[in-house]
């Protein structure tokens, strides 16, 4: 059994989000918050102070009525691989509170290690990292819905999407217990993927030919956010609309149509 584990190929968990299907309904956000014990406050309208591990951005095409168009873009942590695990945030953390796992490709965050210098937040161009400016407070009785799978964070530390890593751990425990070598695709899915009522999110091992994400990431309309910065993110997006794909990255004026690259 131990041997089988050692031969388990390294995984690279990632996500493909179909923006054509995404309705911007926000169910993924709520599912994420409920799954991960995300705190809430009375006024959450300043989005720069609001903790939403998965934030759904609204993109507009900038055209006039009635040619205006909007598109929603859910943005979890990109779990950047950078060059060989050199993701923008991991290398800057002074206290090794965030780490890139070569086994899963997941960028972790150790809340009890973090002392809140926020350097990782400055490093991340996707704003996936959130600082606990306040002590989390649950109105009396509501702490009953807190899940024991995810530790509650305290004031002064940074938190972010973990691709529901605790689900991976729970699934792996089962796999080990049953003496199996590999985790099946549906045994480990993130809360947002599971909740998405539009089936817009697909999650799996980008290295595994049998997983849906493996094929989807090569979709002709697939792209990643800010790819040219070298972050090498593991979240892919699909949009049939050129203007949406173009907003996935920065382009100089003379640069032509955005055609997706094969990965």
């Amino acid at each position, binding site marked *: 059994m131990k041997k089988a584990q050692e031969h388990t190929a390294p995984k690279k968990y990632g996500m493909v989000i179909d923006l054509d*299907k995404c309705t911007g309904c926000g*169910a993924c956000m709520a599912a994420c918050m409920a799954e991960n014990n995300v705190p809430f406050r009375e006024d959450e309208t300043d989005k720069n102070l609001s903790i939403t591990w998965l934030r759904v951005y609204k993109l507009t095409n900038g055209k006039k009525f009635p040619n205006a168009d909007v598109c929603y873009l859910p943005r979890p942590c990109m779990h950047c691989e950078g060059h060989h695990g050199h993701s923008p945030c991991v290398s800057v953390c002074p206290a090794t509170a965030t780490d890139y796992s070569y086994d899963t490709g997941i960028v972790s965050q150790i809340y009890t290690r973090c002392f809140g210098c926020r350097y990782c937040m400055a490093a991340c161009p996707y704003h996936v990292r959130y600082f606990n400016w306040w002590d989390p407070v649950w109105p009396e009785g509501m702490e009953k819905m807190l899940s024991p799978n995810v530790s509650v964070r305290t004031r002064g530390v940074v938190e972010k999407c973990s691709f529901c890593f605790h689900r991976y751990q729970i699934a792996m425990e089962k796999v080990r217990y049953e003496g199996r070598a590999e985790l099946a695709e549906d045994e480990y899915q993130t809360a947002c993927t599971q909740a998405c009522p539009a089936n817009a999110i697909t999650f799996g091992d980008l290295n595994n030919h049998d997983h849906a994400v493996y094929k989807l990431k090569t979709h002709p309309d697939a792209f990643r956010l800010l790819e040219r910065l070298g972050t090498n993110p593991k979240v892919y997006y699909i949009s049939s609309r050129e203007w949406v794909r173009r907003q996935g990255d920065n382009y100089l004026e003379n640069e032509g149509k955005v055609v997706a690259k094969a990965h």
Partner: protein
Amino acid sequence: MNIARRSFLAFLIGGAAGTALSPLPWKLTDDLSIWTQTWPWTPVPPDGEYSYVNSVCTLCPGGCGITVRKVDNRAVKIEGMAGHPVNDGGICILGASGLQLLYGPRRVKAPMRRVGERGEGKWETISWDEAIAAAAEKLEGIRSAGNPQGVACMVGDRYGTVPSLFERFMTAYGSPNFMSDAAIEDSYRITLNLMHGKNAIPGFDAGNADFVVSFGSGVIEGWGSPVRMFLAHGKWKDENKTLVQVEPRLSNTAAKADKWVAVQPGTEAVLALSMAYVIIKENLYDKSFVAENAAAFEDWRDDEGKTYPGFKTFVLNGFSPADASKVTGVDPSLIVSLARSFAGAEKPLALCGRGKGNTPGSLHEFMAVHALNGLVGAINRPGGVWAIDVPDYVTWPKPGLDEAARAGLEKPRVDGADGGAYPYTESIISGFADGVNSGSAGYGVEALLVSGANPLYTLRDAQAVRKAFDSIGFVVSFSSYMDETAAQADLILPNHTYLERRQDVPAPFGLNMPVIGMSRPVVPPQFDTRQVGDSLMGIARKMGGSVGDAFGWESYEACLKETMGAAWETLEKDGILVKADYAPEGWGEAFNTPSKKFQFFTGAYRHGENKDLMSQMKIEGEAADFPLILIPYDSMRLASGPVADTPFMAKTIEEDVLIHDDVYVQVNPATAASLNLREGKVAELTTPVGKARVRVHLSEGIGEGVIALPTGLGHWANSKYIAGKGVNVNRLMSPVADPVSGLDAAWGIRAKLARA
């Protein structure tokens, strides 16, 4: 002196060195890291045994299956139930955050009686016996004073055992004033009544349609059973099907649609009829369906020999694309191409009912859109509209009536839903306030029972509704939460929440198969609450007589079990009863109209033929005083029904919707420029019925002269996470009675906007 100083220094240095070498600093440092990780005020969720309970969500009429994850006795997460026929594992944002209602800060924890002024928030907790006795005594008093009709009742859903118990109570008690929350379902039901001759609700085989034209329906914004529509939408994308959205504003559905037809607000029916014009003119309609299964397409004659124009004549005489273009603002060539694509599709489907469908809407619009479906034969076939019989499993014998009940039931309804004016409509909740305030029924309303509804928030023209409430001496709320209506009540008999009670959930709106769900206690009741059915039966029994006799069941659960009969076991086991092999009725049984055929609407009305079928639905206000048109818009992230946003949902309200406590009104930049308003500026929004402070948000998603506000904001009685934020758009709008159904058909209201 020197020596003393030296020894002091030696002591100091020695002490410092000693302390540094001792375990103390290391221990302290270690403790520090532990302290800072476990502050006593940061909860540590206890671990325990994990279990999963399947149930049905009843937060909206969607009827999704849910799987609740539990740790010991705590519910920690709600997920969509995999394999459920409605939502297959998906869940909406409200459903996913439902535990925040269960464990939320605004639960009513025990029966309460008002002690301060109404709405002052001063309550005393009383026992259930006292509460039941208080209600029974008051109701008995009104009844014995000869005014049983002066008691009204509002419920949220129309079908199922609990609404039926209330209806039964009102009958036995002797009041005609039983009302249910109105929505597009009611308009569709009347449409099917008139055009199919069936007491049915529509089922949409949306997933199998290949060319969908939605007349303002928020297909991905909560219309129908929301998650089911999301799944259908995803399927359309996968299979390259087409969605065309006809709507004045760039809603999410419009943005996701393959084509957004920006129509002038309120003119959707004209566009539908103009499409019919093209389809008829170009002979593109389903000739076999129209010839064999439809009536009143051609001009027709009634039994007395009087001739009426058929649908064809009606449409061809006034709805040419050129004419329609002037009204709708849609280019004639677009109307033509849209009609051709629609008629040319294999499985076209037209949908109706704006946004989430919370406003019943104009009946002529529903009938126009349904006529489009009829023209292309999209009736009772895959990918089309199916007429599904209304849930009929509640088959209790009629209650025995005493003299008082019989007399009371003879009286006219307060909401005007009877008599000659609106013969097709059961109740008109939007007409209630006007009826009370004008005293049109000829008697006063002395008491009101409210269950599963929040009329003080959801009904339009809040001032009139409030006035009506203020005039009613005794308001009983059965709400689980301190919502706006409960806050104004005199007595609260709190119901269990949907996660604590057993209750039948009849077919979700729009599902094209008959389904009964069963929600069940996921966790034991958290507080001293009671299933509303039991509360009601308790009141009835306390009153005794024929009212008490009408409720022979031992308990609500016994009633439920008896009502469900053979289905009980399956419902207990699976939580759902599905007729999976259900197929729409064959043409022989499909239509129960006088002609036994599909009735195009000129032949549909069996009363009031003189009504102007295609009159434009006028909204309140004059253009001279109110140059703009305000339309409400719905969003999945804003619960706009009786239940308000949860804290998680409030977190997701977008930055262009709300900032701190101010709501943004969407304004076209050109309109804003003409009013000298800039992005983010505070403005005063005035309508004929109210005014509010708003902030301006420039949006190219809305045309000139039209402004839009979101629904679901402006709560005042709820938890601090949503109360006091933004404006309740229902407060700024007034209901407009549809000439045929009498239901609220207001799609907007005239407004003006000025710098504040």
